[in-house]
């Protein structure tokens, strides 16, 4: 998935590398130490907590808080109907938003293949939503959705639908905002992929009088496919974890869409069930790793 550069094989450099061990340590150690302290150590700590009923609300008393429950928390979570419903909601969110982004982003990239003056300005304008803060994007859409004075319903002629807090719609409200924010991401990657297709392939197809459809399915799609998969992997991972867009639109609790990630925040930091929150975090982590691995397998196949 990532470029691996060849090591420098010149003997000169290798010889010097041996004499530079001290410098290497000095250069790399601070980074590694910081990552271990802030990322890896907490990761293991979470794992330990996930086997206990620890709550951060009360002081630590060994044997009571935390009391160790083994895999009890995991069994409780995985047999909980409500969690599975949240999981299905999350899956819906991921499929709809990532699907929408892929279609729209790839479509836009295809259209932007045409060279014209101002193409770069258009691309830059389209990319703007991507670098805004997700929670502020959520806030902006909340303003835009508002049934009493926002533009969204008015422009689409939809009447007074309360997108932000009506539980029938708030998931889709978040999906739309997510698509708006992240379509440019897919578009940029697709553009990079399309730009790298050698022109002679099309010229050869032209000679053979290949149809537009034929050229698209036999040249364009196979050539961009690896990059589209990269976009898919990134977006799926992010969409699985994302909560800030939905929280920006609908807030938390009953008015918010029942996403696993929002529930995770609530469990860990609102109801302070630290132990069970950690367990749920680990379940999500395993799910993300599993899904990503499936995609990466496809990616490696596509690259061959």
């Amino acid at each position: 998935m990532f470029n691996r550069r060849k090591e420098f094989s010149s003997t000169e450099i290798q010889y010097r590398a041996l004499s530079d061990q001290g410098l290497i340590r000095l250069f790399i150690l601070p980074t590694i130490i910081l990552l271990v302290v802030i990322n890896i150590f907490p990761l293991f700590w979470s794992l330990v907590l996930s086997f206990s009923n620890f709550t951060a609300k009360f002081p630590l008393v060994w044997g009571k808080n935390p009391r160790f429950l083994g895999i009890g928390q995991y069994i409780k979570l995985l047999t909980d109907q409500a969690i599975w419903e949240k999981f299905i909601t999350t899956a819906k969110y991921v499929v709809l938003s990532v699907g929408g982004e892929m279609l729209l982003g790839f479509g836009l990239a295809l259209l932007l293949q045409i060279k014209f003056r101002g193409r770069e300005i258009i691309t830059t304008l389209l990319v703007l939503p991507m670098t805004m803060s997700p929670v502020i994007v959520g806030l902006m859409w909340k303003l835009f959705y508002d049934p009493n004075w926002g533009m969204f319903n008015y422009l689409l002629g939809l009447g007074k639908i309360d997108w932000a807090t009506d539980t029938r719609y708030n998931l889709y409200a978040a999906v739309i905002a997510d698509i708006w924010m992240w379509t440019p991401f897919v578009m940029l990657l697709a553009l990079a992929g399309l730009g790298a297709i050698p022109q002679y392939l099309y010229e050869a197809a032209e000679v053979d009088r290949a149809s537009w459809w034929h050229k698209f399915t036999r040249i364009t799609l196979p050539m961009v496919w690896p990059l589209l998969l990269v976009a898919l992997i990134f977006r799926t991972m992010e969409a699985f974890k994302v909560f800030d867009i939905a929280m920006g639109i609908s807030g938390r609790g009953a008015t918010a869409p029942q996403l696993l990630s929002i529930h995770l925040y609530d469990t860990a930091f609102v109801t302070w069930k630290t132990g069970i929150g950690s367990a749920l975090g680990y379940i999500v982590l395993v799910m993300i790793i599993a899904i990503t691995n499936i995609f990466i397998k496809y990616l490696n196949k596509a690259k061959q």
Partner: protein
Amino acid sequence: MSAVNKKRVSIVRIIVIILICIFTFIYLVPLLFVIDTSFKPWTLIKEWPPRVFFKPSIAPYIRIFTARTVFPPGTKLTQEQIDNMTWYQKIVYYETNEEIVRIGDFPSRFANSLIVTLISTAFTIILATFSAYAFSRFNIKGKNDLLFFILATRMLPAVVVLIPVFLMFRKLGLADNQLGLIILYTAFNLSFAVWVLKGFIDEIPVEYEEAAMVDGYTRFQTFWRIIIPQSMTGIAATAVFCFIFSWNEFGFAFIMTKSRAQTIPPWLPYQMGVLGYDWAAAAAGAVLFIIPALIFTVLLRKNLVRGITFGAIRK
């Protein structure tokens, strides 16, 4: 190709270009609407259907910066009192009949955002440049594993890491503390910065350094006098990315800060109630907050693809 055919192609081309432009405009409507709303005069705020064209008012921006009280009904200010007001007091008085009591929370939250973002970006870049150079130029045992490890830390769901970090920081007194956020953001951006910077340094020919070392430069001197100047564009692009990430970050800030060190993202969306449903002021806050990110996006446009794929794709 026949002339007729060619003509048809060029007409299709023009139509597609026009469609792209229209689409782009429609795509940006939510953003334009918020910018538009941020200039809405008070009397038009609740109007339905929403009005798009009006005489713009700067009052929402003054309101997001200040805390105010309403003058009791029936209060008549004398001409002299009005004359003594500053221009912004006058605007607020005429538009919403309010008196400015003090500066609001927005400036301090904005300052927190700036401080945390700038310092963490600086730390990240310093640490990452050293590491990226070492990873790019030396044979290190288990290098690919280390690099993968660095990348993996970025892909974790933040909450799993956040629970213990929260406990740790609470113990150390780093909760609701700017330093706490700075440490978190530095660690959070470090993996990204190392990967992207390594890509940039990989592109600098080793021959430069070899030549310099033949001339008697030490390893550190070649790093300082050759690699740093040569990779300045890459460093700048990476720094801007780190800035955008930290500036926009919500999850960590939401959990770790409550008031003193709070940044804008966890603060602004929860002001709707506090502002008395003053949508225009909320919009003004959002506009002010996204301006830096928008400017940087425009500056970054050539390196965007590289950044969002962690340096994997170099156009």
